[in-house]
């Protein structure tokens, strides 16, 4: 097809807004909110300006937008060493232990701040009764003062988290306000502005100088000039075909607005990625993807196949043939693997016996306590996955009477949960070997570009609290970088209007061609973002190990898939956008393509099956510690459209 050109003949030329700042926060989720809070305390006294840019409204943006029913990383009485051991085991032996340890020693302070800001945290009273967060606030000390949380697992604590993000956002906005007033800036918090591209310094191609994006509300193009940036815009959802169809396609487990922007923008700037072969396939309540953690860990529910067998036991010895000792400490992916064997053998449905668990707990309870227990069970969904409560209501499921089906979801790319895809970052200076530090804690291989949360690879299990804490770690180090580089004045060479032309191209394309056919959805001159997303999902699903193949792929399947992916990438330049909303979708889907390709390239390179239950290389079905107990890193060269993949050694730091 002929290349598309934007001469502003059909698309209204946007107003170009140039905003200069020192610290640019890209995203508004837990990590960027943490960064705003911490950065203010270090930057403001130094006269350094902070700017947050969020594509949504910060009160309800990011992965915690809906709320949460638990905080999954709170160390409390546990040591950071044990936290490393847990994360390493769950991620099949390969993690950046320096990053994990560093997170573990910092994270509790963020949880203590949440409680101080008004997040209700369940407590265990002296007589052993469970109190919700409001009752606990009246009678129990805070966590920081020795209050006892309700543990739903060794690392998890229960909360009344409907307003979790609102509370965290309020603190971030107050911090931004503090900085704005002190530095005399007119505006430093931009909502509904979507950053789509990062820009390099013209004199140093390994240094960030700015970013560009657009408003999804007004015809405005934004140019942000910065000295450092935190890229923390979440993981990637809707890269793979979803189990849900039609109007249900938004029912992903991870938030559907996580569009891979973190990975794509970092890759395009030349930052080194790590462990992008990793993915997360959560096993959850079927269809609604409601959380299982409290059911398994707090309510002690068991799951079985249709024959009543414990599939983790019955399939273990067969799994040992390929995965050796890894089957003994069953982590998240291995648990999936053991369950999937029975699903493929027709021994489903797999059910979680909520009824048995509730009845057992009720044996020693008063009617009032039983009612409270049932409310707790519903709250687990209503605080964070309301859709699952809707599935129960629609199917007349009362958990104390009826078991529920479990199902492994479509794959997601993330670095904060039980997965470790992301960007390769410098670690804390006091820990780890020299090759883990080249500068500042949580700085990528691009000078001045930091990341946190889903962005940091090779260190999962941070969850909400850890992402907040990691944003704070990055923020402090960004200020440290700025103070050490006071003379720096990075500038990018790209022309503002040329950048605007590129970003708004889909709207010009729409205007030029949409009337060519009677149905603007079907037009030979362009593809609508929705259809391009579905093409990407189909390709990833069939060639890169999605649900259709039970997560199976191979070298030959991947090589075939790359041919289609390449053309999807080419066709992304022919996306159209009828309005700013569709322009948002066009760029989100572009990011999904780059993130999806990174995932596929990494899987191609790692010739083993490190994460059975997440994905399988049919041509290398076993775990191969001798050759692959290492990180896989990559660098993308946008100019030549080529990927360079290579191994990086794993160092065990905790015994």
């Amino acid at each position, binding site marked *: 097809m002929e290349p598309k050109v934007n001469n502003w003949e059909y698309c209204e030329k946007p107003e170009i807004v140039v905003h200069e700042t020192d610290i640019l926060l890209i995203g508004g989720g837990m990590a960027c909110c943490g960064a705003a809070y911490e950065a203010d*305390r*270090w930057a403001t*006294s130094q006269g350094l300006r902070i700017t947050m840019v969020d594509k949504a*409204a910060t009160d*309800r*943006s990011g992965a915690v*937008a*809906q709320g949460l029913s638990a905080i999954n990383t709170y160390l409390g009485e546990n040591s950071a*060493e044990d936290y490393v051991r847990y994360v390493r085991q769950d991620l099949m032996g390969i993690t950046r*232990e*320096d990053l994990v*340890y560093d997170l573990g*020693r*910092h994270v509790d302070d963020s949880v203590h*701040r949440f409680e*101080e*800001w*008004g*997040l*209700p945290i369940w407590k265990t009273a002296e007589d052993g009764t469970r109190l*919700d*967060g*409001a009752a606990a606030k009246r009678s129990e000390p805070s966590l920081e003062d020795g209050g006892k949380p309700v543990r739903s697992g060794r690392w998890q604590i229960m909360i*009344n988290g*409907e307003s979790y993000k*609102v*509370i965290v956002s*309020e603190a971030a906005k*107050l*911090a931004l306000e503090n900085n704005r007033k002190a530095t005399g800036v007119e505006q430093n918090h931009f909502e509904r502005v979507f950053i789509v591209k990062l820009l390099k310094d013209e004199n140093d191609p390994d240094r960030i100088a700015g970013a560009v994006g657009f408003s999804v509300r007004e015809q405005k193009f934004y140019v942000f000039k910065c000295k450092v940036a935190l890229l923390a815009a979440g993981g990637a959802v809707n890269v793979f075909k979803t189990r849900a169809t*039609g*109007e*249900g396609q*938004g*029912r992903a487990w991870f*938030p*559907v607005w996580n569009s891979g922007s973190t990975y794509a923008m970092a890759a395009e700037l030349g930052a080194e990625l790590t462990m992008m072969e990793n993915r997360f396939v959560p096993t959850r309540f079927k*269809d609604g993807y409601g959380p299982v953690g409290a059911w398994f860990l707090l309510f002690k529910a068991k799951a079985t196949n249709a024959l009543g067998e414990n599939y983790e036991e019955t399939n273990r010895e067969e799994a040992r043939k390929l995965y050796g000792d890894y089957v003994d400490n069953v982590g998240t992916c291995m648990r999936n693997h053991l369950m999937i064997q029975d699903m493929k053998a027709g021994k489903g449905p797999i059910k979680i016996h909520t009824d048995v668990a509730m009845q057992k707990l009720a044996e020693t309870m008063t009617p009032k306590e039983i009612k409270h227990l049932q*409310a707790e069970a*519903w709250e687990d969904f*209503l605080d964070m996955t*309301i*859709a699952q409560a*809707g*599935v*129960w*209501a*629609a*199917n*007349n499921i009362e958990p104390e009477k009826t078991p529920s089906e479990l199902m492994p979801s479509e794959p997601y790319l993330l670095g904060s949960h039980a997965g470790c895809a992301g960007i390769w970052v410098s670690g804390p*200076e*006091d*820990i*780890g070997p020299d090759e883990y530090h080249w500068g500042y804690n949580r700085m990528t291989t691009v000078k001045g570009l930091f990341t946190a949360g889903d962005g940091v690879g090779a260190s999962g299990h941070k969850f909400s609290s850890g992402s907040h804490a990691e944003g704070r770690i990055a923020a*402090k180090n960004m*200020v*440290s970088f700025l*103070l050490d580089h006071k003379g720096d004045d990075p500038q990018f060479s790209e022309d503002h209007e040329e950048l605007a032309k590129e970003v708004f191209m889909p709207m010009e394309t729409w205007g030029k061609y949409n009337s060519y056919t009677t149905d603007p959805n079907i037009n030979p001159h362009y593809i609508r973002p929705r259809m391009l997303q579905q093409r990407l999902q189909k390709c990833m699903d069939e060639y890169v190990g999605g649900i259709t193949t039970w997560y199976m792929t191979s070298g030959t399947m991947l090589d075939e898939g790359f041919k289609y992916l390449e053309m999807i990438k080419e066709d992304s330049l022919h996306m159209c956008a009828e309005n700013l*909303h569709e322009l948002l979708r066009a760029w989100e889907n572009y990011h999904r393509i780059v993130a999806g390709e990174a995932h596929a390239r990494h899987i191609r390179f790692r010739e083993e099956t490190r994460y059975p239950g997440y994905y399988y290389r049919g041509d290398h079905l076993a775990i191969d510690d001798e050759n692959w107990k290492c990180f896989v890193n990559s660098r993308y060269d946008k100019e030549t459209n080529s990927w360079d993949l290579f191994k990086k050694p794993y160092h065990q*730091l905790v015994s």
Partner: protein
Amino acid sequence: MPSFVITEKCDGCMGQDKTACMYICPHDLMALTSDTHKGINQEPEQCWECYNCVKICPQQAIEVRAYADLAPLGGSVIPMIGSDTVMWTVKFRNGQLKRFKFPTRTVAAGQVDIYPDSSAGDMSKIKEPGFFTHHARGDALPTLSGNI
């Protein structure tokens, strides 16, 4: 279809400075119809059913009809937001009702003091691990060197 707007109840937030559902939707799904200026979910197949539009609507004009590809008709889950609690009404397909009330916050919105001890970061510790809060309390964080 995820979230839907009841025509009669929605006034397009005419008397307010912003259209609440448009403001809050994390995925930019809510829009105003061009003719009647009422809210509409413009892309229901991208809806996460996060309920933020439902919770924020000043007219209680927005509800959720569970995804039709997976949920039978007839159930509903409806929140009522208070200043520090949320009340849920769950209606089953068979008509059974359940009600739950949960706390949402223990400090009133707008009342939080995020820097109770007014401490700025101790610049002499900027190269050390720890947050400004750790330094203000005099907490030294552990390190790993002894464990390698």
